[in-house]
């Protein structure tokens, strides 16, 4: 608790007593997040969700050593998935490691460790990314993805990744999207700086143009972003890229629309297909094709992963 000397400590029996209360308001709580320290029980590692990209890996899993995020992206599915905006840190990371080892005894594992949170945003507090890098280094059949929107990441404080099996996946968005919808995240400049530093230090880097968010004059906005990225980053040193436009389950979006009546990105009139909201087929094709075409100028096609219909 040295990080929060003024914090009021409230003892609770179980994190769900606070996290799962009735009638909570995610948005209000996120404005003044409480930090819940807990022990995770039950299943600790889950098979990857259908709306997530497996990036060509057969045994695709994810785990949550934290719930909720320091950042505040208006369109984030966490706002529809969780009943609470408070942040939970699970302290029994070693139990998660044991469960991953059980899976590794059966087959190789591709594991996303920063899906329901942004671990790098809070690394100075938890040190969890460092723990995961060390654990991955010691387990040859394990590949992990650490997804982030953080800028100015202090890579010098992370252990070296000799194996290259820790993939730092940077979600990049145009300035317009960052300013309007991705509150408290790293700026595009900050993210580009972090990508450059990660590449120069030999870390494996993935660029995620996912979710692509529609905004007025989206082509110009994404075009400016691509110009900056490709002029500042050695694209041949990027491991792979993923492309996908915004999509969200019906249940989550309904809850988000109720809680965020003043958010344009949430109130956009998406199309509902079999319980998944997305842009119209025409707009989806146009946005994703445009991005893939731009990327093909710099990245071999086999390293571009696009979220396709068959992944649904």
């Amino acid at each position: 608790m040295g990080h929060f000397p003024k914090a009021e400590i409230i003892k609770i029996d179980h994190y769900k007593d606070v996290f799962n209360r009735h009638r909570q308001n995610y948005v209000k709580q996120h404005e003044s997040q409480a930090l819940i320290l807990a022990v995770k029980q039950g299943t600790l590692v889950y098979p990857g969700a259908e709306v997530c990209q497996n990036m060509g890996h057969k045994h695709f899993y994810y785990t949550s050593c934290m719930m909720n995020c320091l950042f505040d992206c208006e369109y984030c599915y966490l706002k529809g998935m969780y009943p609470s905006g408070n942040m939970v840190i699970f302290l029994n990371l070693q139990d998660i490691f044991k469960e991953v080892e059980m899976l590794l005894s059966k087959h190789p594992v591709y594991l996303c460790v920063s899906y329901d949170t942004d671990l790098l945003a809070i690394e100075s507090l938890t040190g969890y990314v460092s723990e995961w890098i060390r654990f991955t280094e010691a387990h040859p059949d394990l590949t992990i993805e650490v997804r982030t929107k953080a800028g100015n990441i202090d890579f010098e404080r992370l252990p070296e990744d000799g194996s290259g099996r820790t993939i730092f996946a940077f979600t990049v968005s145009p300035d317009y999207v960052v300013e309007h919808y991705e509150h408290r995240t790293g700026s595009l400049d900050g993210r580009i700086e972090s990508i450059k530093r990660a590449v120069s230090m030999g870390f494996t880097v993935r660029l995620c143009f996912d979710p692509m968010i529609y905004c007025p004059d989206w082509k110009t906005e994404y075009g400016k972003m691509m110009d900056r990225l490709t002029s500042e980053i050695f694209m041949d040193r990027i491991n792979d890229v993923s492309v996908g436009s915004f999509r969200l389950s019906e249940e989550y979006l309904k809850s988000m629309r109720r809680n965020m009546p003043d958010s344009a990105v949430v109130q956009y009139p998406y199309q509902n297909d079999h319980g998944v909201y997305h842009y119209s087929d025409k707009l989806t094709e146009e946005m994703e094709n445009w991005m893939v075409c731009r990327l093909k100028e710099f990245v071999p096609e086999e390293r571009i992963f696009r979220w396709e219909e068959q992944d649904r």
Partner: protein
Amino acid sequence: MIFIFTALYPEAKPLIKIFGLKKRTDRTRFQQFVPEDYIKLMAGDNDGARDESGEKRIRPEIVLTVTGVGPVNAAAVVSSVLTEYDASHSDQLLSFGTAAALHKQQWEEKRETLFLLNKLLDQNTDRCFYPDMLVRTSIPEASAVTGSVVLTERAVRFLDMAAEDYDLYDMEAAAVYQAGVFYVGPHQMSFLRVVTDSGISANVSDVRTLAQHVSDSVERNVEQILDYVEKLRLISFGEKKRVDILGDLEKKTVEKVIRDAHFSKVMQDQFIQYVKYGTLSGINWMAEVEKLYESGVLPTVDKRTGKKVLDVVRNVISE
């Protein structure tokens, strides 16, 4: 709107005075106090105060209700009042009252201090409730046990050990939370308590002196309470504003277009969604609607031509 609940009149008295509230004489089951303007408005035959069914729809900015002592009274009255005024997402509930310090050794330091409760234990069911701590305030926090009987000095000696993690003892907080959560969320409920004693000695018989002591203790903290209520009022106002995306003119235009375009229910929902997004994104959809009227597309003769109107609006606000 702010709902304030106290158990006793002496707890409410300083607040009634400072907020300039008047008693509602048409409420006999429990004492209810509202701003004088509201009483005048309700007494008059003001059409604006009634909705289409003739029910009075204007709500006071603040309602203070004296519930009576104990969890059953508190739960019954909270439920009744929140139903009567149709509590909603933008309202705030404040449970205010007095409490006893649970631990004798802390009595002197807590005496007549105001606390904001962050953890409420229902002594009867052993269940805990946690209101959200979202209001920035310098009021210190404390946890409380809610019991059904007045805390005696003898019981304090027992609870000193049995409830060592808790700071205060009261008779309503956990009950107010449990009844309130049927209507509002944990981010809409606050619990303030002034510490007045550390268990009542068995031979207390002078009720008038006791009542004066309670009023005096509240009076000493009234500035902090006032400041807290003002913060709740601002939150309530902000929340109401956040939800009202469309202005009056826009709302009227939406109603007119829905009527003139013969939209089905599904089409109405789609149109409202387009308009919401358009307004939030700063797109001038009203100008497009005006053009549709000028060019004679609106009003339409049937639902089928109404579909064209919907397509035009969709094309303007999205792709």
